């Protein structure tokens, strides 16, 4: 009972820390040193000291007082009557009396010494440079966790099975299936495979022409041709770049409290699309996003190519800047540490599959990451400039992308504005001089003499001013991108319990100690260390970076990762279902110049990927989640694929490339207190170009489990809720697509309803209808013969669009 109540004290304690640190209170520290510390050492430390730690409590050094023990927090600052320490020495409850020996109680004066100290705010002399202890045993144990071992090229199993022998992936999967007494399904029908791979790779269903061409192609490499076509499509980057944007928690607005526009975020989005399209080596992709600004001035001879690259590098660091921030946070130091925390959390989950954020306040409960590791990394980001200003509303930093020409253009423009102003002033003062001359004796120049000026001059002034206003309004906007740059380089102290007001030992910048296979990156006094850190991330010996990305690819292709917890490879994450395959893929990636498309080719052309999704109750009994891949798992399309596919089959999808569809300028409010969100979603561009508004996501996205852009999300949910069905039944968007689909069928060359139904099925599902469905559709049309043809076809098309066969990939 005592103990339970102590949990509530933690938050109060942290408030107490805040209050304490707001005034250094030298004499309170003195009081602690003179009276409290000696008393604790003398009367308590024999059981709660460096030798013995009864109740996991130490009382021999101030920082341990903050940590409390097994029973919870030691005291509630300012409230001796609610403090465990005082209750124990006062012996108010028989279950907890200290010291335990009945013959050795503290004297009333000693009790009062402690009570007074608590009452006066429990001031501690922290920040003395003493070390916060790390449990070396946990780090040692952690090193043995599979994910911290360097991947080595696994031996491809020799066991073969028919077609499952040519592709190494298939050999791994086959062997695993066999060991679990499972057998894979037969190859999926060609049309089903084509729809699957097309939706997977470009996020759209195959066109009828694509279906025809593939069905007629009986060559050995028919599938390979399709895969190459899809990998080369500009829409590949649109689809796969969007996957990465889930990892980058991409959004066009800040969210959290002050919801202002990320007016330049789209540059990062396009950078991602282009990077995937060009199959940028993944190590380079990582490097650019963490330290692009530092790569900018290296290599590459001058020229437009170098200029483009330089811009790309600067844009890439938008990755670090895109997170949600509390821009009205009143406590500016807290805001800074919160932003760093968000960045670390993102970096940890996205590249390493580690939840580093947990170590902000205490050593990681489960993973071998200590608070010191955390602040070693935090120092790198603290030495990096993410924010321009912390003053409410805080401003994030943007890197200028302007080139010489643009800068010159801006300069020229400013000159024209200046000379325009001068000219107006010249005309005006000359006219006023004239006016003065014409004044009668004793008459004064009015305060605003302009109305007295001759009409012609006033007219001239008005024209000149109008021109100037126009000119000023047309100021060339200099392009800039959200991103980071170097800040003031410093190592930072451990923040005890995450509070910037209770500082411990200063930790040198670095990487977590558990990574022993890698070279420890060098940190200099001149640089933040971001570049060294980024290079360390993509070192081939880094046990996590390659594994995490190949696992992501696998998750996106199959719906379930080899490690199911895609963003957590730590001790609480899932164990890999196919550890050898995971390592084989990781090494394969690294050895093929980190080519993502290379890995995807292997996956797409595997039998594992090509098998049917047919259910089998025996297999399902053994492996209900299908983690051993005895079939291809059925999946509902993701939000953006669903929307784009609906628009595409309705003939109303705009395949152009968008820039920013935001209706407000950079840093302007999307909506402040009004709750009136003017963001328009009537665009028919592909979903990736539709604004991602934090706090008020586009409702279609929200309904269908789009990433909420608050966190790294490599494993989107796929939920089924009734409001989704309402959308299919009632939304204007679905009606519009159904109407477009109907019009297309009716205006085409087909003359009878039967043929049109066949065509409809092919457009939506890539296969012809079974007779039962065909009959049902025709009957529906007949039943509604009273309404006009377009109407009844629209209704039919809507039902067909709403069906599971359309919404699911199988």
């Amino acid at each position, binding site marked *: 009972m005592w103990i339970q109540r102590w*949990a*509530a004290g*933690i*938050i*109060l304690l942290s*408030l107490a820390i805040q209050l304490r640190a*707001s005034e250094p209170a030298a004499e309170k520290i003195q009081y602690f040193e003179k009276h409290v510390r000696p008393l604790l050492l003398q009367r308590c430390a024999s059981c709660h000291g460096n030798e013995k730690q009864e109740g996991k409590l130490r009382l021999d050094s101030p920082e341990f007082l903050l940590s409390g023990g097994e029973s919870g927090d030691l005291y509630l600052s300012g409230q001796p009557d609610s403090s465990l320490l005082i209750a124990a020495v006062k012996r108010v409850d028989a279950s907890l009396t200290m010291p335990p020996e009945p013959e050795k109680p503290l004297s009333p004066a000693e009790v009062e010494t402690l009570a007074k100290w608590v009452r006066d705010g429990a001031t501690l002399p922290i920040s003395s440079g003493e070390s916060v202890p790390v449990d070396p045993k946990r780090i040692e144990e952690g090193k043995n966790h599979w994910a911290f071992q360097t991947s080595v090229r696994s031996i491809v199993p020799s066991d073969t099975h028919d077609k499952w022998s040519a592709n190494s992936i298939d050999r791994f999967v086959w062997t695993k299936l066999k060991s679990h007494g499972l057998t894979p399904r037969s190859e999926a029908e060609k049309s089903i495979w084509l729809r699957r791979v097309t939706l997977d790779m470009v996020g759209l269903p195959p066109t009828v022409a694509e279906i025809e061409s593939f069905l007629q192609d009986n060559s050995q490499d028919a599938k390979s041709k399709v895969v190459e076509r899809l990998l080369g499509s500009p829409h590949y980057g649109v689809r796969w770049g969007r996957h990465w944007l889930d990892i980058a928690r991409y959004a066009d607005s800040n*969210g*959290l*409290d002050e*919801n202002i526009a990320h007016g330049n975020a789209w540059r990062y989005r396009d950078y991602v699309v282009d990077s995937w399209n060009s199959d940028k080596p993944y190590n380079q992709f990582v490097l650019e996003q963490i330290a692009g600004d530092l790569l900018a001035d290296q290599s590459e001879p001058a020229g437009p190519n170098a200029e483009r690259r330089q811009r790309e590098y600067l844009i890439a660091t938008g990755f670090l800047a895109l997170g949600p921030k*509390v821009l*009205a946070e*009143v406590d500016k130091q807290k805001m800074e540490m919160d932003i760093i925390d*968000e960045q670390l959390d993102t970096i940890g*989950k996205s590249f390493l599959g580690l*939840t580093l954020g947990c170590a902000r306040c205490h050593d990681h409960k*489960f993973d071998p990451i200590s608070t010191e590791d955390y602040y070693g990394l935090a120092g790198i980001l603290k030495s990096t400039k993410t924010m321009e200003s912390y003053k409410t509303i805080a401003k994030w930093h943007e890197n200028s992308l302007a080139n010489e020409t643009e800068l010159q253009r801006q300069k020229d423009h400013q000159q024209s504005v200046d000379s325009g102003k001068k000219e107006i002033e010249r005309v005006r003062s000359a006219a006023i001089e004239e006016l003065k001359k014409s004044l009668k004796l004793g008459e004064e120049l009015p305060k605003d003499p302009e109305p007295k000026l001759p009409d012609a001059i006033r007219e001239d002034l008005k024209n000149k001013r109008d021109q100037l206003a126009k000119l000023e309004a047309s100021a060339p906007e200099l392009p800039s991108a959200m991103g980071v740059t170097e800040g003031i380089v410093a190592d930072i102290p451990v923040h005890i319990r995450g509070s910037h007001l209770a500082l411990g030992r200063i930790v040198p910048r670095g990487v977590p100690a558990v990574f022993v296979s890698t070279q420890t990156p060098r940190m200099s006094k001149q640089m933040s260390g971001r570049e060294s850190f980024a290079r360390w991330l993509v070192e081939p010996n880094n046990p996590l970076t390659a594994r995490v990305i190949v696992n992501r690819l696998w998750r996106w292709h199959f719906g379930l990762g080899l490690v199911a917890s895609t963003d*957590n490879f*730590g001790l609480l994450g899932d164990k890999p279902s196919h550890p050898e395959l995971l390592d084989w893929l990781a090494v394969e990636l690294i050895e093929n110049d980190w080519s993502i498309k290379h890995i995807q080719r292997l996956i797409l052309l595997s039998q594992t990927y090509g098998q049917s999704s047919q259910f089998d*109750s025996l297999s*399902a009994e*053994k492996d*209900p989640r299908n983690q051993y891949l005895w079939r291809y798992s*059925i999946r509902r399309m993701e939000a953006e694929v669903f929307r784009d596919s609906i628009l595409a089959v309705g003939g109303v999808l705009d395949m152009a490339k968008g820039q920013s569809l935001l209706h407000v300028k950079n840093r302007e409010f999307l*909506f*402040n*207190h*009004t*709750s009136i*969100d003017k963001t328009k979603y009537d665009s028919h561009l592909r979903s990736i170009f539709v604004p991602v508004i934090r*706090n008020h996501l586009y409702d279609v996205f*929200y309904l269908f489990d789009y990433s*909420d852009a*608050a966190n790294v999300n490599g494993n989107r*949910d*796929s*939920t*089924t*809720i*009734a*409001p*989704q*069905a*309402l959308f299919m*039944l*009632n*939304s*204007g968007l679905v*009606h519009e697509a159904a109407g477009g689909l109907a019009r297309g069928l009716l205006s085409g060359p087909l003359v009878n309803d039967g043929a049109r139904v066949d065509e409809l099925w092919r457009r939506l599902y890539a296969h012809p209808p079974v007779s*039962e*469905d065909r009959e*049902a559709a025709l009957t529906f049309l007949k039943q*509604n013969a009273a309404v006009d043809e377009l109407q009844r076809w629209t*209704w039919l098309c809507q039902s*067909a669009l709403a*069906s*599971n066969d359309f*919404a*699911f990939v199988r």
Partner: protein
Amino acid sequence: MSVGCNCQSELVGLRPTRRDWLKNSAIGFGYLAATALLAEKTSGARQAYSNPLSPREPHFAARAKRVVFVFMKGGPSQVDTFDYKPNLQRDDGKECPFEKPRVQFAPTGKLLKSPWKFSQYGETGSYVSELFPNVAKHVDDLCFIHSLHGSNAAHGGALLKMHTGSDNFVRPSLGAWVSYGLGTENDNLPGFVTICPTLAHGGVNNWSSAFLPAVYQGVPLGNASTPSDQARIRYIANEAGTPAAVQRKQLDLLQQFNRRHLEEGALDAALEGRIASFELAFRMQSEMPQVEDLSQETAATRRAYGLDEKVTENFGRQCLLARRFLERGVRFVQVTHSDANVQWDQHSNLREGHTKNALEVDQPIAALLEDLKQRGLLEDTLVIWTGEFGRTPTAQGKDGRDHNPDGFTVWFAGGGTKPGLHYGSTDEYGFYAAENKVHVHDFHATVLALMGLNHEKLTFRHAGRDFRLTDVHGRIVSEVFA
């Protein structure tokens, strides 16, 4: 229904990875079992569909079955409403004798007395200011906590903290946790409904399910910029005007395709769940207009909620709608009093602003209390009234008050709380919570406890760890239990 759906457990949603599925694979077959379709194939370990919103047993005996959260956006002032401070009246214009918080939203000046008179009401003789004359009549039914405190002085952080327990991460909201813990009692309606919520300061994150399955998220009716008579669930009405009879036929056709597709061998609980979701959607769109049809209420009821008066009409309708949702078994209903100017956020013009705001809500809230009581719903319905924080007893400018998360008031009614209790207190001026302090985490733990949920056991595993509404905090304030 021509689809032949005779489901035992109607469904609103599902999540393929939920562990419960595996556990429940023998029950809750819903659609398929009822139609005896593919009976032989379904005997295996296929992940069967079960309704995640089915009512669930609480951890221990619940005091309240449902919640209505009456939220005052912007931060109503405790010292001008329910936390009477005679010393503040006495020391008007003097310096605040103790230190102001280290972090303040804006600097404030001297003590500012309340411009309103306080009187004692009811048998408990509780003080209420003249801002709430109607609520004051129910004061003996209310259970006050005067020592609530949070940790964020800005609207965004404070709103998120109050709704989700976290001010810098996106976390499931209180309503989502309750709905996850207990399910709901009406198969045709969502478990968590929020009427005219604000989109500012966290917006949707204040009613989202975050990492909990989406079926537990709050379903909004309009938002703070929508007049409440136009607040509707998105897509509840057909945007193309398709007649209902045609829609039913479309649905029948669709379900025929779906059944055949399922039969073809693509057996999957997700497919089955989606089939069922269409039936629920269809029922929801028939039931919702009935809930929203306030013409079914008597003239007396409408008058009581203030629907006849311009000033009370908008919020009155929200309150009346809330009661209609509650009596139909919706688990968690929130009504939000908010406008385009952060409503209760009187950094200046305290007198004018708070007077206007109180006029808009006083009568409707009193009517809601009375109505719930008369219908016998109050005893197991927990009513919660609060803002995201209170306001400073010191003046901002000459006639305003700043944000104050360090001490403010929440009151409960019904739901097993102790009527007439005043728990905890602030200091002599109403600045800091002083006695029996209750943090927002404690408040959350207490609300869950009233619902029969143990805040330490109501967890959800996400990204490798078990999350709770109260994180690692939370003390149940059992002193407020009846």
